[in-house]
């Protein structure tokens, strides 16, 4: 009788098994479901409030306005992604994980795929609901075709780009958070660091009175650059083109993941 698992077979199937193990860990935590539901609810609630309180003003960007909630929902995505790894450090589970799956970059990749994927799914629901809320509420606030405002529609190129881009934005924020949490390990430090990164650039840009620097800060900040993807009005005046902006955020996310991967690889757990 042969043992069901041989070392050779296992190393062959490392990726699916790692993914499956991580999925089981994430799926069986009660907090995962609550956080995902919370992210959707917060995003939709804030977006709905923003469109319900909007007043007709020249040059108002309806797509951006309807997606305001993404800025609140991202905070929940940060918690979800940070807890994916820092929970393991706080309970000591990480040592079991790394014993079972010694290929550390694979573990991080599996976590990234799952955290990113879950946020992508939740983000898609949240963004669709937000766009729907904008579409239904805005005409009642005077944003009608008669007043020169186009109805929000996913059939419209820039609106579709803003919506899809917002979903990607949320997933990239989750990846950035995961990378930083892997590097610093503690959940409090990780959340503090990520939120400082997210909020500091816009505050600094609001304070600096030199327009040259203001623009630079908005180009390099993960949130300010990433949210350029939501712009549909006056796109030429944005510090970066929408996709360039999302690219800057992607660079941040990749950089954080590489940093986290290196720390995970070369430091004792």
């Amino acid at each position, binding site marked *: 009788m042969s043992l069901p698992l041989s070392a050779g077979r296992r190393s062959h199937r490392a990726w699916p098994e790692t993914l499956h193990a991580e999925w089981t860990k994430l799926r069986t935590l009660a907090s995962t479901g609550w956080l995902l539901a919370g992210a959707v609810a917060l995003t939709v609630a804030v977006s709905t409030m923003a469109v319900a309180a909007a007043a007709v003003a020249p040059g108002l960007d309806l797509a951006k306005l309807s997606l305001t909630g993404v800025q609140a929902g991202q905070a929940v995505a940060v*918690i979800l992604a940070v807890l994916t790894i820092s929970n393991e450090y706080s309970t000591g589970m990480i040592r079991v994980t790394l014993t079972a799956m010694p290929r550390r970059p694979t573990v991080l990749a599996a976590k990234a795929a799952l955290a990113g994927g879950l946020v992508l799914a939740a983000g898609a629901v949240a963004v669709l609901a937000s766009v729907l809320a904008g579409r239904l509420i805005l005409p009642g606030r005077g944003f009608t075709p008669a007043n020169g405002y186009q109805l929000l529609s996913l059939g419209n190129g820039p609106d579709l780009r803003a919506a899809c881009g917002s979903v990607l934005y949320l997933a990239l924020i989750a990846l950035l958070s995961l990378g930083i949490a892997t590097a610093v390990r503690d959940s409090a430090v990780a959340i503090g660091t990520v939120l400082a990164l997210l909020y500091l650039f816009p505050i600094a840009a609001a304070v*600096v009175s030199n327009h040259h620097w203001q623009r630079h800060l908005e180009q390099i900040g993960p949130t300010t650059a990433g949210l350029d993807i939501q712009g549909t009005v006056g796109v030429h005046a944005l510090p970066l083109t929408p996709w360039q902006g999302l690219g800057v955020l992607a660079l941040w996310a990749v950089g954080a993941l590489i940093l986290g991967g290196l720390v995970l690889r070369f430091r004792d757990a």
Partner: protein
Amino acid sequence: MTTITPYRSPVQDGPDGFPQLLHAEWTKFRTVRGWVIGMIVAVLVTAGLGLFLVAASANVSCGASSSGGGSGPVRHGAAACGPPPLLQGPAGEPVTDSFYFVRRPLAGNGGSITVRVTSLTGLPPGPMQPGLMPWSRAGILIKQDLSQGSAYAAMMVTGGNGVRMQWNYTGDTSGLSGAVSAASPRWLRLTRDGDTITGYDSTDGAHWTQVGAVHLAGLPSAVQAGLFATSPQYIAISTSFGSGNVNNNQTVATAVFDHVRRSGAWPASTWTGGDIGPATEGIQGFPQGYHQAAGRFTVTGSGDIAPAIPGPGNGNEGHEPIGFFLAGAVAGLIAVIVVATMFMTAEYRRGLIRTTLAVSPVRGRVLAAKAIVIGSAAFVTGLAAAVGTVIVATEEAHASGYSLWPVPWPAELRLIAGTAALAAVAAVLTLAVATMVRRSAAAVMLVIVAIVVPYFLTFTAAVPAVIGEWLLRITPAAAFAVQQSTSRYHQVQAAYMPGLGDGFFPLAPWAGLAVLCGWAALALAGAAYLLRRRDA
């Protein structure tokens, strides 16, 4: 027969008072390297951001050209390529001083001028402006000389604030109330006696009431006196989700004077009219100027004689007060919040809380000791961060030729002490929240959402100004009011906005801090209750 002596530990009983508990908690704090590093990071981040913000705000090309000379700040360079230099009043405070002045020299240390005002009107009301502004002013004025920012005292009628006596930009007392019209004219009088100017008003020119007597130090014997009119900008602020706009529109005021009487030595034989301050183009159809016929003077002017208010919304971009550059304190505060959270949650994570509570079974005292230790550590951190920021920001401003908005020293002291207190109370609030929720992630998130996010939303104008003002009234973020550098003046209409870079808060500095203290007290009460009622 053997006597059995029960075992006694050879270790002496230690004292178990509150000071020992404090000492134990202090030892826990100082021996965790990460926490001490966290506090140092808070100081460095705050000061580093302050330095960066000043350096980035200074005009880059000017900074390069003036540093070559190496002889201190070069006013020339700053004026040539930076924002216009600040206009300063007799006490050194920034002021606005522009109006239309119909004047004559008044010689000697005595003399007086009396007029009757029969009308004060503004532009025809339109969609973008009201007709007459509440602080449109016209009346009589005695001024040291014709330069902007020189000492003055004036009696005036206003668009919506009755008769006022104002002097040296910040001084203001009220006289007769009600609007001026042909049916109810206002008589105004100014008399000079040495350095003292006394203002009177009257409804009939016979019965006079003294409004005020002010002392203008160092007034020369020859001064300028006459009639003036001016009207401040109309500032329309419209903000909603996704958009923010400040529109500044010029307005004008036109006043009609008669019964102009003078006493004393007036050497010139005629009146001279002219703009004080840069000649503004005025508004089409309503040029600044005056018209004299049969003892009646009609004077039209635009501008303001008042303290200046900082911020781009008020046309004063490029001269921010020092409190602005403490914006990096938000980042430092996040570090303090993280450390304060871990100071409590680490006890739960490591099970140390059971030892702590076994040693000191009165649980409220443990919480008090922890709050005192983390509060003091955060206070010192905040103090170091604020002092460091003020020093490096001021130095950098000197070096790069950036002219900071002058802030009186009591306000600067309050900024520093207030920032330290803000850090201390925020740390105590965090500790209490962490005691209640026990989990690091939840505690950090809750406190950051309560303190940092409202500040972020209002300062970046992400929410309409009305909502932002309420957020800065009721959330713990109200405490950032301690960082407001300059005062509001009731006699100046300006964009006193929390966002858009103006840096004004809806609450007074210490009232804002009190709101945070209230939240911290509530959280501490909740933490003490839960700590006693729940198993550790």
